[in-house]
């Protein structure tokens, strides 16, 4: 997103930071993978992501008969691209790569691209299990997305702005997690769900032999799973400016606090998978619509009253 500010924006980072962003995210993702391997009790957790990447790099790509290879590969590529674009509005310290006035909406739009991506990968393989995985994710999107949107819009409401740097500034006195705990918890759940991670991994579940990813091998699998991990890291990192005060904190510089808080959220997400079995959407959708949506609306209403009262 280096070319983004046509009119130079004083709050955004310089253009070359856009080149740095993938590197930073890659490192964060690598660290997360090592953490996950360690949590899974695997030996040589430090080396595991490297071996996995080498395995997929040298692995043969395969194609299923009458599959739509172009569709599937576009779908796979959309995942990491969407994650990177979503990260453009993420304040790395105090400033993001692109400080859009509609940052929250931008993040939401990029994250929703994952719906299309997973479905395209599942459909493109022309395999029954791949397709089952693909439409499981579409059902999952219908379940998590509305509560998720109410949750992130509550943070925007609290700051009276869709700009992420403004939302961070509004939390100088009190982090939003304190005044909108329901929104924060719902956001955490949807962060796992949008990366089809943890208890929300039915789209790539073992019961359908890998679901949407069932027919992927080699570089195709590397791009798909890498994109998924990037998405998880970006979704976790976005909780920091939305609810956890961004880079605010004593002693350390802002970027270090962002890193520490992101790592904490990621650790929580890794633990979620350890703690809960896969939540099937035929059960979850009812909970999401009957319980979570009213709760998040009530939360938004409460925050709106606070904002109006304070004005």
């Amino acid at each position, binding site marked *: 997103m280096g070319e983004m500010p046509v009119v130079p924006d004083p709050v955004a980072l310089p253009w070359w930071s856009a080149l740095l962003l993938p590197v930073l995210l890659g490192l964060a993702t690598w660290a997360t993978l090592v953490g996950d391997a360690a949590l*899974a*009790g*695997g*030996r*040589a957790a430090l*080396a*595991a992501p*490297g*071996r*996995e990447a*080498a*395995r997929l*790099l*040298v*692995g*043969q*790509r*395969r*194609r*299923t*008969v*009458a*599959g739509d*290879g172009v569709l599937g590969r576009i779908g796979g590529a959309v995942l990491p691209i969407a994650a990177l674009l979503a990260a453009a509005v993420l304040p790395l310290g105090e400033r993001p790569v692109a400080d859009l006035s509609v940052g929250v909406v931008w993040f939401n739009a990029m994250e929703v691209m994952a719906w299309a991506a997973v479905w395209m990968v599942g459909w493109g*393989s*022309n*395999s*029954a*299990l*791949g397709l*089952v995985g693909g*439409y499981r994710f579409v059902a999952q999107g219908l379940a998590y997305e509305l509560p998720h949107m109410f949750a992130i819009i509550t943070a925007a409401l609290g700051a009276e702005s869709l700009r992420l740097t403004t939302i961070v500034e509004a939390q100088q006195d009190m982090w939003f997690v304190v005044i909108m705990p329901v929104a924060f918890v719902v956001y955490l759940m949807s962060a796992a769900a949008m990366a089809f991670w943890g*208890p929300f*991994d*039915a789209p790539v*579940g*073992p*019961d*359908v*032999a*890998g679901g949407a*990813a*069932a*027919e*992927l*091998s*080699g*570089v195709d*699998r590397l791009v798909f799973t890498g994109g998924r991990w990037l998405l998880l890291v970006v979704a976790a990192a976005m909780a920091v400016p939305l609810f956890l005060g961004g880079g605010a904190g004593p002693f350390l510089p802002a970027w270090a606090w962002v890193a520490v808080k992101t790592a904490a959220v990621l650790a929580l997400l890794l633990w979620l*998978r*350890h*703690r*809960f*079995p*896969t*939540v*099937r959407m*035929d*059960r979850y959708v009812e909970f999401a619509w009957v319980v979570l949506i009213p709760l998040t609306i009530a939360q938004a209403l409460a925050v709106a009253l606070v904002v109006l009262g304070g004005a």
Partner: protein
Amino acid sequence: MDLTALLLRVAARRPHVLVVAVPGATGVRLALEAALARRGWPVAPGPADADVLAVAGMPGPELAAVVDAVWEQVPAPRARIGAAAPGDVDERLDAAAALLADAGHQRTQVVSGNASHGAHIHSRPEHGDHTEHGDHAEHGDHAEHGDHAEHGDHAEHGNHGEHGADAAPDHAGHGGGHGGHHHGHGGMVAGLPMAELGPDRDGLTLDRLHVPLGPVLPDWPAGLVVRLTLQGDVIQEASAEVLDARHTEPYEWPSVAARELDGLARFLGVAGWPSAAGQARRLRDAALAGDRVEAEVGALLRRVRRSRTLRWLIKGIPAGPTDVAALLAARLAAIEAALPAAPRAVGSAGLGDLLVGAELAAARLIVATLDPDTDRAEAGTEAGHG
């Protein structure tokens, strides 16, 4: 510097292994799973993610045909091993890792693999470019030229009467099947029939898809194949059979607790709870080794029973006269009492009927919680129609 050889060596330290369980050879499967856990090698969910195809036991003719078909779907670099006895497992896995790291072998193997593969091809339009195969192991990204992993060829076998007497077992594939398993009369696409139409439970006319589940599927009973007719993910018809049912010597578990823990581990795997499943598997291996595991088993049972999420997810999924949650409770009680077994369906009798009307995810849970003893299956097929 040979980068490919270097990457092969790095990757060969942690290959993904697709385990094919042979009915009756449960002991070999247990040894294999324990060896994989010891080495920290992940279990592949399907052929696409596999580097090693490991057959646990000596398959009968029907399962052997399936294994051949699955092998065609494993992308290079790859190695295929078979262990006839529990003692062979470690040696075979070492051999597989050595084979995977051997760049010279992996290069030639792809070529020969393709050549022999040609015999299986009937009339696939995309296939045919046999001249460019040589470099595939070197440049994985070029592999799209009709490489052997561009399977689907066996899918074509599926065109000829799946329910017929001559039904070749190889189209059971890895339990997913590629779009080619349709029984269509509505025309052909790329040599595959289109899906046919049929009325669904709401009176609409929807596509019916014929999908075999098993016998190579994660945490699935050995040798079981359930042929499904799906509309969306709702099962309209189902029939279950056990491959090579007459060839099987039943496995005698040395410990009832270990057998029940094995069933629990597979159920938890299907339910998508890998950490609890791993715990159950470790305790199973400990029980088989003769360790005292009562305290830890108690902790695992408490963990599973306390999970409100799990109960919410499996409550009300009908499995015969009872539901999946009740069956799980009975299984947990059986482990606790180390009593002879929860009531279990012998073989696959009536399994098809239980699955009709269920969704695919629920069907997987039903099979996992019933855990049919495929070692003692009678030959034959029971069909269920909805």
